[in-house]
């Protein structure tokens, strides 16, 4: 059994999180919509998609080509990717 580590792409809104999830799904990548930890966000409430950190490069590529504007990528440990 492996302990998968999850990373997060922080997005401008829940609408963009929905869009990101569809773009990733179309690229064959699994993701979940998550509410960002409000204690760690600069502007307050926000949403993003979480995905397996092992797929970070594929996720970045898919979101970029899908025209999804990601505010920042955060690793499972909380540091910026």
């Amino acid at each position, binding site marked *: 059994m492996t302990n998968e580590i999850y990373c997060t792409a922080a997005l*401008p*809104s*829940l*609408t*963009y999180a*929905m*869009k990101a999830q569809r773009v990733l799904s179309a690229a064959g990548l699994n993701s979940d*919509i*998550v*509410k960002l930890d*409000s204690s760690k966000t*600069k*502007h*307050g*409430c*926000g*949403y993003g998609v979480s995905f397996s950190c092992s797929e970070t490069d594929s996720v970045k590529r898919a979101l970029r080509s899908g025209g999804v*504007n990601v505010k920042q990528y955060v690793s499972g440990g909380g540091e910026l990717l």
Partner: protein
Amino acid sequence: MIYLDNAATGFPKPESVVSEVNNCIKNYCGNPGRGSHELALASAEKIYECREALSDFFFLGSPERVVFTENATHSINLVIKGLLHRGDHVIISDMEHNSVFRPIYRMAKENGVHFDIFPTHPEERIVDNVKRLIRRNTKLVICTHTPNVSSAILPIAELGELCRNRGVVFALDAAQSAGHLPINMKDMKIDALCLPGHKGLCGIQGCGALCLGEEISLSTLTEGGNGINSLEADMPELSPERYETGTLPTPSIVGLLQGVREVASTGVERIHKHELALWQICYEALMRLGGVEVYEPDCAGAVLLFNFNRLPSDRVASELGRAGVCVRGGYHCSALGHKTLKTPPGGAVRVSFGLYNNEQDIDGLADALAHIKRKTE
């Protein structure tokens, strides 16, 4: 009961709409965008599906540029007040509903905006008439696709082309055309499309939408919470959250989603053809009765406006109502339209068709009118 008031609101609603609205209220109506629990996300998912459905249906190509509003009037106000500033010039048609005319009038009276009204008759001169009215400070052309008091169709693709070439924003009031006539925002070069959810698109009352082209950014009409960037005093920059404040009406949006799916599966061209046929049957029935004046008799479609036996329109509508036939008399919130059509004081009777009307409904209308005729002659 015979329902012929579809220009006011579509009735009845498709069974799938009723069923999904009920399902939403009973099973998943959380507050979208206000948390990450199952119900909040289930609502948000349906709302995004509706953005996708509208974006596809109107060829917008961008679900996040579908903004939910209260209704078409709210969408129109958002465009007009979010775009125009003191000294700007705007052009509207002589068939506008008060949803367009009143906000423009107020902007002119209180905010130093200038406006002109282009004549829609004769039809072949519409584009030239608009061309002549465009000035250096013209920022917006906003007009109806098809009015609520006539079935005339304005040359939207040509007007869109003209506006795009002249750098003027082109906004369309699709209150009477969405779900009745084909609309392609890309081909028609529409920058802002204002829609009701509860008319031709078969949703329930409570929501409308504004589909915004990529180049369009508006000032906000309302400010408040929307679940995003709560620590910031300013509204977010990006659509749709920039324009959506407070809790969205999820049951209504879910109804619209199901309604758009129904319309798309039936086919809007088929619906239009059905309404053209009903209009023709109705026109012929009215002519057989005699004593009828039809306004714009050359324009068939979802709306037929007439006066009967020189009776006040509200009296005819009221008598028809007592006979179980739902129509609308008066001025239909369109002072400009009635003035253009030269209806008499008191306005006219409007019959408006929808997806679920049939020939028997027209027979019922004709029988009821014949009865009124016997009573009043």
